[in-house]
């Protein structure tokens, strides 16, 4: 699901831009994967530092208590709950960002 980390070309510009995407979206899971790649050592120092920061501090969606709690609810409660949350787009959007679930779709 984490599309931005699939680097299909070794073109340096494309790689830099991919790193920027991950930093901009604070996508911890993608940042960790990029850091495993030896190519990350050749990044400019400021971008590399930002990437490490993202990998270290931003929580992944699996760490969210809201997400974890939902696994203990019956499926129909989840279904109704999701739609109730959506009655307020602002709240739904905030929750999606807060739980980092939006990263699953990048």
């Amino acid at each position, binding site marked *: 699901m984490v599309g931005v980390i699939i680097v299909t070309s070794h073109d340096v510009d494309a790689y830099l831009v991919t790193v*920027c*995407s991950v930093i901009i979206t604070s996508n911890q899971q993608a940042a960790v994967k990029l850091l495993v790649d030896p190519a990350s050592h050749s990044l400019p120092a400021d971008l590399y530092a*930002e990437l490490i920061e993202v990998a270290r501090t931003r929580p992944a969606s699996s760490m969210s208590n809201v997400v974890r709690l939902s696994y203990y609810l019956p*499926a129909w409660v989840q*279904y109704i709950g999701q739609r109730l949350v959506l009655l307020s787009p602002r709240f739904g959007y905030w929750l999606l960002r807060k739980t980092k679930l*939006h990263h699953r779709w*990048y």
Partner: protein
Amino acid sequence: MSRHKVLVIHALRPTSRQTTIDHLLAFREHLPNADVQYLHFAQPLPKGMLDQVEPDLLIVNYDYLNYRFTPLWPYVKNRHRNLARQSRKVVAIAQDDFWAHRLLDNWCMSWKVDRVLTPIDNHLHVLYPRTIRRAEIQTVLTGYAPTSVEPSDPLAARPIDLGQRVRAMPAHLGAYAQEKAHQTIEFSRHVREVGFVVNVSARVEDGIVGADWPKFLRQCKFTVGMKGGASIADPYGLLYARVEARGQRRTHNHDTADSIPFLRRRDGRHRFSAISPRLFEAAAAGMCQVLRPDDYLGVLEPWVHYLPLNHDFSNVQEVVLAMRDLERCQEVANNSHKQLIDSGKFSYRRLVDDAVNGLLADSPSAAAMTWSDMVIYLSRAAQLCKPETIHLHDAAMHLIYETLSGQHRVSQCAKTQVVNSISQLGLSDWLREQGDSSRSDSLSWRSPWIWRTLRTESERNN
């Protein structure tokens, strides 16, 4: 003379498969007398533009409809409902109908869909209990023979023996849905043991997307596959939620349908099956296919067009032995290429004909100013979607969305890098325009998905 206005709604993502892109492009290629435009559902548009566009035909692609699995589906489907009302005719192209099929059925009714194209040809009354009474339902394929096929090396010159990517399906669609991944992994284990070079994976992160996929296939001698499908219908996606939650609670997600009581009693009531687009991709790449014996469009015969692998692996040794005879396998690959690709029977023209036949009225509606405005806007938005700058497009969209969301401070060095790259291409105005459009279209930037414009041949030439 004015042309028919055809609007295709899609949901291309950075991870979209090449088949989906080919599928979409087919409409412009095979409808030369119509003005075919592509609109990403999350793409921001200037205010009011969408309310005045009146296409002669609205085609909704399966990648858009697959968003019915997500909690945001109520918003997604309402976003373009007015557009559907203004269209003369609406066609829906569905896939994976058995997953959340009630939501799909309800959507068809609410958008007043005139024709549904689905790869499933049985149990349609189960999948579309309401739509089947008012709309025409037609069976199509999930993929077709690509229009342009690049020449490929003979099997003997290819470095990888067995290549494949599969998706390990969760258990909620039944044992039949899980068989494909199981067959692939098991078979790759067998052939690896006897010394073949194998590049097979069921992991999402190993996925190969876009133009790299056909390149990968052309490096492989063999692939393994079978028809895809399901043996359980999951009307609202609740079974999926239950299976997912169960896996998370138990810190593993490798259940099979047989090991979960609430699935076991449902499994096998129906069997929905469809031919995978991989069949055509592999044939186009000149690969020799190892397939489970089945009816493949009534044109493929075992040992002539593919190597048959029994479902219980009882003949695996025979298949492995046949794989060592590259001369014979080359002949099988050539036969399959002739039957599926060279014959021209399974080209995308067939899909386009199925989608539009009888639905385009004799006289197209008068060209309105808003339609041409939209065409200009969409073609400008496609500027950054060249293969070499596609990453920049996504990064720019991330930048806009994150800046607008204001959830946290956007990293200055990453922002500078993206803005500099955009300005080097002379597209600073484009970035500003997209930022303005996104700001006025809150549903666009609030949705978590990055949109992609389909870059068509004519825009490439401009």
